[in-house]
């Protein structure tokens, strides 16, 4: 997919000498959100789903019926009931409460990883695309190298290097995700660099730094936003896969991947131990994928009729 498909829908405001608007206007955002909901109903659904997941993660102590680590010793592997809506696990812990707290680990890791990689990848991509020539070549080969190791293999390798912890997981994921942001940011920079308003800015004597931050960056917000949503979904999957393999979030912190791997051993006695985290995990990933998909359609001016 060529990334120039996803160009920003707004032409630079006013004359080419006038920089694009730089302050975020809340009213405009609100109007944009309303337009998005109207033109992308599926996207609106996913946005609602994400809001719910985030709220549940933030207010986990208020929402969860039990302490996720509390072991109801006499009521292990009990099926869903009025007391335990999604049943209990092999240690008698409430599956629903563990799912709710698990959303916390997923969201914290997802938000931090995506945000850090977005910033890092964009800086690398813009600077690399802007400098061009040898420096660009060297930076991009390094990025290629990181991307040539399959993501999960790279994560396994990083698991040897870093101690298993939330910080370790985030560092490893940032290394895996950053090249993808770099790729989008660089492609956009190469496109924007040729636009007449950049030439105009140069002619007025704007410094490279000013051109990058004031003119190049604001014009690649759309594709980066789409990418963030899609990669967020990838991060959730990767985090759960690492926990599933026992090298991600260390127990007993509840996490969806960990719950899945614990559930496998009891699948015949307590299938809800596998189905509940499996479905919740997939729903979360689905929401972010769908949001990314809808954003792509929404922000692509070629599709507006």
């Amino acid at each position: 997919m060529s990334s120039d498909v996803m160009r920003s829908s707004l032409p630079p405001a006013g004359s080419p000498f006038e920089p694009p608007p730089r302050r975020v206007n809340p009213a405009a955002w609100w109007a944009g959100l309303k337009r998005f909901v109207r033109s992308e109903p599926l996207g609106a659904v996913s946005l609602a789903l994400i809001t719910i997941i985030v709220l549940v993660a933030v207010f986990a102590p208020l929402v969860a019926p039990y302490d996720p680590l509390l072991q109801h010793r006499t009521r292990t592997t009990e099926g869903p009931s009025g007391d335990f809506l999604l049943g209990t696990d092999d240690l008698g812990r409430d599956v629903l409460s563990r799912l709710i707290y698990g959303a916390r680990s997923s969201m914290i890791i997802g938000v931090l990883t995506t945000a850090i990689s977005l910033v890092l990848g964009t800086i690398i991509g813009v600077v690399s695309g802007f400098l061009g020539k040898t420096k660009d070549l060297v930076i991009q080969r390094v990025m290629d190298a990181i991307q040539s190791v399959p993501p999960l293999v790279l994560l396994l390798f990083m698991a040897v290097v870093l101690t298993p912890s939330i910080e370790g997981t985030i560092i490893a994921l940032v290394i895996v995700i950053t090249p993808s942001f770099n790729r989008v940011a660089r492609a956009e920079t190469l496109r924007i660099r040729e636009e007449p308003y950049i030439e105009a800015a140069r002619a007025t004597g704007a410094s490279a730094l000013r051109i990058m931050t004031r003119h190049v960056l604001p014009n690649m917000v759309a594709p980066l936003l789409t990418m963030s949503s899609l990669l967020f979904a990838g991060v959730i999957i990767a985090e759960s896969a690492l926990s599933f393999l026992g090298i991600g979030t260390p127990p007993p912190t509840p996490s969806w991947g960990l719950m899945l791997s614990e559930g496998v051993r009891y699948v015949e006695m307590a299938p809800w131990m596998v189905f509940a985290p499996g479905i919740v995990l997939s729903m979360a990933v689905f929401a972010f994928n769908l949001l990314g998909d809808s954003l792509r359609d929404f922000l692509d001016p070629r599709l507006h009729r």
Partner: protein
Amino acid sequence: MIRYLLGRLGYGAVVLVLVTVFVFIAMTFIPSDAVDLMLADTGASEEQAEALRTELGLDQPVHQQLAGFLGGAVQGDFGTSFYTNEPVVDLFLDRVPVTLQLGLLSLAVGTVIGVAFGILAAVRRGTRTDGTIRAVAVAGLSVPNYVVGLLLLTVLGLWFAWSPPFVYTSPTEDFGSWLQQMALPAIALGTSAVAGTARMTRSSLLENLGSQFIRTVRAKGASERLVLYKHALRNSVISVLTLLGVNLGTVLGGTVILEQMFSLPGTGQLIFESVQNRDYPVVIACTIFYAGLFVVTMIIIDLLYALVDPRIRAAREAGK
């Protein structure tokens, strides 16, 4: 063309050297020493530990270790396992066929289903079928492939009392048993490739169907079937090929976790066990080998482009 191929190979070599450099730099961040971990329970003396460090070359600064590794790599020596003392190359080559079988089978499953969905969606554009396929495709993309594997195992095991054989047999030995064992992980891994392939096939087909040359084909009175399969679909092969490359990384990575789950003796199992045992030489070499697999396959896909599309061939022969 040959110059182009040489260029690609050179680029691949550069990328692999960079991967190696990255791996060795990263290794310096290991919190505790490998030898300490190995000897933790054996009660070995500090001198013995020192001797082992010297033997393994861990007492050298990182650039010397790196140079030593690259020097050996050129001669086909990628180090030996801490535990079994076998050359890592042999360990990897013993297991790589299983991983390649699984990877290719999953890519085939994902591509066939994805292209079929894509054709259906394109032909019925704008109808409910089209919308359903888009939703199903995104849903398929969203269930992590190891969860698909897990659910398949659970459902088949619980309700149909069927589980795949747990001892690997090679396809030449017993094809039926091999297929039974490969089917579930291949389906699980393939699902993640379906969504992208379906979307790409759909948009590329629609683009082709709306183009001038299709109008000409229609004007000469060709049947819709001929228009679709012979003319439009052929021109969409390129975009599907591009996606093969994108899916490759996911599939190769996914084999790690699915081999674990379905006890397939592939390279994924090798690297996972080595990570758990802290068998550093194997982990280092396997990471680089995986990158090698990826790079080589990307070059093959690149060559396939030229094979499929004469325009690309001509451009490459003229240009580079």
